[in-house]
């Protein structure tokens, strides 16, 4: 519900919001998130704490608004951002530079830990200009993969000074986003509607598989992989269309779902509850795609967990659980979709979900936190 959402106007356009990952086996909800800004004369990386319940104001009232812990200047627009671990954040810049920032929790400061200057560039890396925007970053500690407007793919290790591997001219059009498929394989999406799989073990500088949208080759802007079923991939396009792909079969998406009216900037499966998916768009909306109604109609033994699931053969698992996202007729399978932001006008550039919490940021210079997503 809307009343659970707390908002804060922050006087900078927000391009990325990310929850700090929780330590393993943590029970409490996330309490810290990072934001990055874009299109400011002075862009910043900021760390916020969600106003937690213990934090009461002078008059004993409850302060729900996010509270700034620390920030640091960032050169160029923040194009993408991801936590490497509990205290390090990898940031992709429009200047082509990739930086690891460290959040010092004892004295609440941020510092630049390591920097790969102009990891993405046009023509010549050493000239004073010519950096190409780094559009996407994904981490699997210690590995970091970045993609950019230069069509290049870089593989870094957090502990190594130079790139472990670079694929120049990997794509002739702009790469918009990247994510890990498996530990050695990555997925990229580009500006001519293609989804590509790259196997980093192979020395060949070519993708191992290419999927593409039929028809008009609408650019794809974001990609996410189902956390448990790695063959299910979701992408978002320039026309706002959500595409679900089954990378085991075919070269075209399994289903195309329409909700947004402009560019879909981010798509995220809920990391622990992947029946839920969240997307945000330039049109100022944020959709919650819920297929859990479908799941509840399944045989009840699926929910018991523990030993009983062990009796299920692998194929049964697939058939029943998968159908939620891979069905050709989503309406029949009762997918519920809800816009979480009515009446918003400016772009929602980024969102992140973790546990019961959602955080998103907009071009209207506001960040929003919803801590009761499933209430």
């Amino acid at each position, binding site marked *: 519900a809307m009343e659970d959402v707390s908002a804060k*106007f922050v006087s900078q356009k927000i391009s990325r919001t990310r929850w700090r990952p929780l330590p393993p086996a943590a029970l409490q909800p996330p309490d810290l998130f990072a934001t990055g800004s*874009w299109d400011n004369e002075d862009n910043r990386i900021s760390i916020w704490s969600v106003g937690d319940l213990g934090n009461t104001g002078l008059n004993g009232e409850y302060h729900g608004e996010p509270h700034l812990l620390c920030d640091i200047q960032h050169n160029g627009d923040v194009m993408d951002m991801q936590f490497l671990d509990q205290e390090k954040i990898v940031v992709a810049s429009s200047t082509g530079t990739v930086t690891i920032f460290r959040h010092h929790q004892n004295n609440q400061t941020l510092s630049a830990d390591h920097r790969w200057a102009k990891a993405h560039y*046009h023509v010549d890396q050493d000239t004073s200009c010519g950096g190409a925007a780094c559009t996407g970053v994904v981490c699997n500690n210690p590995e970091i993969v970045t993609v950019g*407007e230069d069509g290049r793919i870089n593989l870094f290790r957090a502990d190594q000074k130079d790139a472990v591997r670079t694929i120049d001219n990997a794509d*002739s*059009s702009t790469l918009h986003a990247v994510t890990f498929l498996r530990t050695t394989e990555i997925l990229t999406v580009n500006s001519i509607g293609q989804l590509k799989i790259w196997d980093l073990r192979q020395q060949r500088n070519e993708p191992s598989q290419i999927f593409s949208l039929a028809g008009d*080759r609408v650019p794809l802007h974001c990609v996410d992989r189902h956390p448990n079923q790695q063959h299910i991939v979701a992408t978002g396009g320039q026309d706002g269309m959500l595409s679900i792909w089954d990378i085991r079969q075919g070269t075209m998406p399994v289903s195309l779902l329409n909700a947004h009216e402009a560019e879909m900037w981010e798509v995220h499966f809920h990391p622990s509850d992947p029946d839920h998916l969240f997307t945000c768009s330039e049109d100022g909306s944020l959709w919650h795609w819920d297929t859990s109604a479908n799941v509840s109609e399944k045989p009840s033994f699926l929910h018991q967990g523990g030993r009983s699931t062990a009796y299920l053969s692998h194929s049964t698992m697939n058939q029943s659980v998968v159908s939620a996202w891979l069905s050709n007729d989503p309406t029949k399978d009762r997918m519920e979709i809800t816009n979480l932001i009515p009446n918003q006008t400016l*772009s929602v550039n980024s969102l992140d979900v973790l546990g019961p919490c959602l955080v998103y940021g907009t071009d209207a210079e506001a960040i929003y936190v919803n801590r009761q997503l499933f209430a």
Partner: protein
Amino acid sequence: DTVPPQVVPGADPSARQLCFAWGPAEVLVCETLFRRAGRSRSPCPSRSPCSSLFWGEGRAGAAARALTGSVAGTGDGAPSSSRVFVVRRDQDIYIHTLRKLFNESHGIFMGLQRSEEELAGKSRKAQLVQVSKNYRSVIRACMEDMHQAAVSTRDPALQGQYSTQVSILSAMELIWNLCEILFVEAATAGPLLLRLLDWVRLHVCDVDSMVREVLSSESPSKHKLFWNVVDVFVLQGRMDEARHLLSKEASANPASMNMYKILDDLMKKMPVPSLGNIQTLTELELKWQHWHEECQRYLQDGTFASNPHMESICKILLGDEDAILEKKELMTTWYHFLVTRLLYSHPTVKPMELRFYAQSSMDLFLGGESSPEPLDMILMAAFEFEMHQVIKECSIVLSHWWFVAHLTDLLDHCKLLQSHNLYFGSNMREFLLLEYASGLFSHHSLWQLGVDYFDHCPEYGRVYLELHIERIPLSTEQKALKVLRICEQRQMHEQVRSICKIMAMKALRNNRLGSALSWSIRAKDAAFATLISDRFLKDYCEKGCFSDLDLIDNLGPSMLLSDRLTFLGKYREFHRLYGEKRFAEAARLLLTLMTAHIAPCSFWMTLLTDALPLLEQKEVIFSAEQTYELMRCLEDLTAGNPDKQKFQDDDVETTKVEMLRLALARNLARVIVKEGTVEGS
């Protein structure tokens, strides 16, 4: 909009002539080489060294590099005559904390435009009042932030700046609130007074600290400021609080208990207008008259003679102007005096009578000691219901357009400004919105907000948007996509083309042919697609292989955008077929490329050369008919080519032609034999 000479540091208008170039949001100023003209006519500015100033620079970001402050100089330490100054307006737009005001009010503005008259009468009015309140709460929130910033900074200059902003914001809220009461809600006699009381209580906060101090002291009635606080409550019509305080004093003075009781009773019985229409105005006036007479009686029979404090309170209750004016320091402003006066003399004042009381209150209060300030004039104009005067004065005094633009828009939605048309532009609402939005567009980050304001200016909004949007620097593809989306949604085809062309050119410069092509496909720019296709073909001719296969192999329907692009796609298809050893299909496609005139003539030689290996295959691929056609193509090329000379001069070309003729003849021979055999069998 004149620029005082001192805002251009380093430039000396008395020595040299200055030249200007006007942009929608900024002015470029520079000194020319021309001395200040004496008697001779000033020379044509187009010959001045700075004549090349133009407004395409924003995109390139060279000269129009944005700097905070009103003037930014470019050129480092060079003589002043070679400097270009960027003079900006709307300087306050750059104050960080105010961005909250701009962004949050944008949402309210959009809500108001959407709410268009679906409701009628009372509920519509309630809706508009709510919008007005929302705007005010944004001002208040911003004021609090600004106050926090002022308190927490250690830089005295910044502190001064923040404090100034706090008082500007507080004045804005004061004016807005009054406009809300008088114009938006249009409170009628009775409720009008209650609203004005609320207004005074909310905004006269100079005495708040005194009230707090007295109330929190151990024994308030012993405090030296005790009676001041009682007076403040009475002056603001806060009867319950005043009576509560008085009761404390009473219990401390049992001797004068009776006197307190009487005053308390008078204060309790004072008739006040009610918001619900339970009593009519006449009823109220009757009751009030009765109560007034009662007060008069007690005053005259000397009930309070022994206590000057209480006597003065009784006089205030009677609306005695001198008694009220004696408490000048406790009211601090003439408009507080006005409202107190109305409360105790004219509680059923009608909106249209306000102007008389307002004017006389101001005169009495200021007493010729000080002259009214701009804020006083604005409030006075509001009391006089001179809406246009309010807006005009505010436009002059305030340093950005936020306030007047939003207030005017709201008043326009209240249908209060319809009759007024300007002698320039369209109407006042639109004029002010255009000014405000132009200011936003001059800002590095806030330009996105400006778009929606232009959208709601029916007459000139579109033109303004077109002019401004072209000046947004396209630093990344992501930003270009956002600008593009704005243009596409509004069918601004010219701007869409221009953005895509800029991005395509950028990509081309960076040797990103694939990206360049997708930008021109997006703009449906056939000419540019042809240009890029030619680059691909040239690369192929030079290197013998294609770059960016992932793109060319996936052109899809966009291949049809330009003939050359079609050819590129099809030619690549030929190579693929050949590579897959589907020779017959490859041969057929190759021939079609020439006979259907898909291939440009300049490329025919390459295509014919590509036919060579097919002609030399062990198996016969081209049929007799196809071979004849190939021969005709070759002869057309050599005979019909205006550069015939070239072929004869160039040995390599001549050899090629000879080889082709030989290969074609041989193939013809083979195919005749083969076809003859097939037919014969």
